[in-house]
């Protein structure tokens, strides 16, 4: 069963996008596909929320974009992480890990 946008915790989509971009530059379609693939099809990214999130992160100067050509020779807009974005994703990752640990402890021991 996949989790759609509404079930995702507020702010997690931004972290997912940033984490995917930490491995290299990607265009929108590729980012969505990668998240779905890495999450084992658990997260189904709604395109309606992907692009506003990409623009939001761009406005926050965490990512930047540039037009390029895909491996299939198609035109696409590629997104990449800025140094500020890298710092942000590192900080968010550690706080997310603490959150998961906390949740795990509660679920296991409560």
């Amino acid at each position, binding site marked *: 069963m996949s989790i759609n946008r509404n079930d995702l915790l507020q702010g997690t989509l931004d972290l997912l996008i940033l984490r995917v971009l930490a491995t290299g530059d990607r*265009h*929108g*379609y590729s980012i969505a596909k990668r998240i779905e693939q890495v999450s084992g099809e658990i997260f189904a990214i*709604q*395109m*309606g929320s992907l*692009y*506003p999130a990409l*623009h*939001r992160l*761009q*406005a*926050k*100067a965490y990512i930047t974009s540039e037009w390029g050509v895909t491996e299939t020779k*198609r*035109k*696409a*807009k590629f997104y990449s992480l800025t140094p*500020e974005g890298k710092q942000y994703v590192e900080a968010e990752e550690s706080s997310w890990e603490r959150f998961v640990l906390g949740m795990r402890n509660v679920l296991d021991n409560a």
Partner: protein
Amino acid sequence: MLWFKRVLLKIGILKEGHQAFREELEEEIQIHIDQMIEENVAAGMTRQKARSAALRRFGNVLNVKEECRDSWSIRVFDQLIHGLQFAFRLFFRHPSTSLLSVIVLTIGLGIGIGMFAMAKEILWSGIGSSHDDRLFVIRWLDDSNDWSKARPKDYQHLKKNLKSFDRITAYNGHRGSIHNPKGVAYPETYFMQWVSEDFFETLGIKPILGSYFSSSDSQEILASSIVISHRVWVNHFNESRNAIGALAFVQGKAYSVRGVMPKGFSFPSYDDVWIHENWQTSVNDTNASSSRRVELCGLLKQGISIETAKSELEVMAKQLAAGDQQFYKDKINLIPNRLSERDEEVNKATLLTLICALLVLVVSCMNASNLIAARAFKRSYELATRRALGASRSSISIFVLLDAFLISTAGAIGGWLLAGWGCAFSNKIIGNIPKAPAHYHFELDNGVALFAIGATLLAAILSGIVPALRASKANMQELMSDGSGTSSSKFIGKLAKFMIGFQIAVSGAMLIVSLVTTHEIRKTLEMPLGVDSEQILIASLNPGRASGIDSRIEILNFHDQLKRELEGLPNIESVALTGSAGGIFQSKSRIRIEGIAYTSEEEWSKSYTLTISQDAFKTYGVDLRVGRDFDQFDTIDNRLVCIVSDSFAKEHWPNENPIGKRIANNPEGPWYSVIGVAPDILKTNVQRDPKTAGKLVYFHVKQKEKVGGSTRLIARGKGDLSAQVASIRKSITQLLPHFATSQIRTMDEYWESRQESTKFFALIFSVFGTAVLFKAFTGLYAMMLFASKNREREFGIRIAIGALPINILRSAFSSTFAQMMVGLALGLGIGYGISSVIVDAVMDGQPNTSPLAHPSAYTIAILVVLSASVLATGIPAWKASTANPLQALREE
């Protein structure tokens, strides 16, 4: 700097333009959808089905586009553009209210900005040192918060032990004479300071020519050099660069000029010459007389707080007080140097004037608010329609706030120009005020610009917030059914009532302040001296240490000799001696009349006294009403005599001949016989107490135990008196080569110069008063407009259901009567309080700003406020009561 990067990114997007952004976004989404279609086709779907599935999966493209735009705040920018369009449309569709609002805010902001520029210079500017903020005057305070100077030995103790200060310098000053034998041919008196060697190093002000004393100078060099002010350099050294090293006599002692300070520099007060004094030599003088005590100024160490320095000083003060309980109290105060050098009363007056100016600004905003509300009210249907079509409350509020911002910006431009003109005008006047520091220069600098921006934004918010709130509630349903009974309308109604009361209070108070202050000052300026002041020259005759005469007999002989010499000059008709300022400044005294049994000194007659010499009345150009003048036989060994003014004689001996009556001015003191009655002259603002004004008793200088002090020479001449000045100086120098006088000028010129600061304040308050008067009317007109729009519909309904016009009027007045009365009473009280402080500060003496002393000012203020309030309330009611009810019910 992340925020800066974000701002740049947003600016970049806005710069690219809406069209480019939309096209790029559409292209990106289309590419994404195409990829999804290809994937679906690859999975075996037909192209038609693949396309439908991709579009379904992607969701609402329009929504996605909107959300992307929102990420960049493009929607807010669009709203701003629409808001500005609305504001401009409103501005030009209602030119009369727009113009009136701009004028009201121009006046408010102009007065606010101009007064801030002046207050900034008067209250917050230093002496021009790079470390002004670390310079503090150190003062011991007694129980009544008066301060005392320190003994040199304590200065040395503090200098040696205080850790909070980098330096502490000592100085002590009084009047003295300076004479450049190669310059002008006479010595002149100035205020001088005898300072420790590190005085200038502590202040951190460099001379424009030569150098200043330094701690590294030898005692020999220090003992023989002086530093002079720019003014002395101009007056005595003809601005010559050769002044450095030139010989100058200070108090008869030879010095060489070491340096010339920049124009306008003066410290600690209005000083012109600085002489080195080795205070170390006085450390053993434990009971140092006041002339040997010093004032202290310290340079606080970097990073040390005032509290730390104060604590350290208090510990030391306690140690010193323990050693000498009578001399010191253990309270100590640190005063920023920029405040210590100025007159506290002037500071207070300036601060109060600034507060008044800010109050005028607040009232201006309220006036503008009423005007903005009135015209937003006219656009109610447009706003309600926008609201009905989905515009948010915040966007409606922003529309009205932008209207206020547009008006405030236009007002700020006008205000800035007005303030600039005011500063330039004030700079012209300040140059003529003798005691105003020459470095005062009012200008609209960066600090003032910041204040102006802040004030403009505040004005926009203050004037726009209530109309914006009101407009944001615009509701088509309420408009159709008249929503005067809704809670929001009730709240705005209450707010409007509060605003009415507040405006009446502030308008009343400001009117009282401006009218009473202007009246008091004008009264002072118009008081005639009652003597031929244009034909009388006046000069200071303080013998001083350098003159070589000291005893009473020597001084009196010098006076006699000088009188003979000067009366021998062509065009000099008569010469006499008087008290301070040619007799303009008199002493207040209590007089007892022979034959009256007093139970206490409090019952004695209050009067002014003045010491003069023979021929003073002749020199003043007035004849005695009865009796005779003092003569050479009225000496201290003969019968003591006095002359009284007409007012004094009429009060004490109304139906009797005053000649031969006797008075005394102390309990044990000798009796003085009245030998003459003089007309009432020299009735100036110095005689502030109306009960005492005009009552003057003249004593003879030759019957005084102590002579000298503040003696002035007055000489009556004919023709061009400026030609006589050099001759008078020459005669004085011939008699006593080192005798110094101050500037010699006519009594009229002297009195004019003393009045300059009063004139300056009179001008400020006249301008202030005119502005307030104008504003009181425009403000109340705005209220009227607002009130009329608010209540027209209500009155229309009442008339339609049968109410009589008189009932409408009664209802209108009863609803605002309480606010009017409370506002007026508060305004009069506040106005009385503020004007008392300002008048007291601007002029010497006890002010009387009560309604009894200024019936016309209070009457005008009450009439203006009441008539405007009555009109503001009555006109809409009258209009509604006489109009066709159907017309009143129709909107727009």
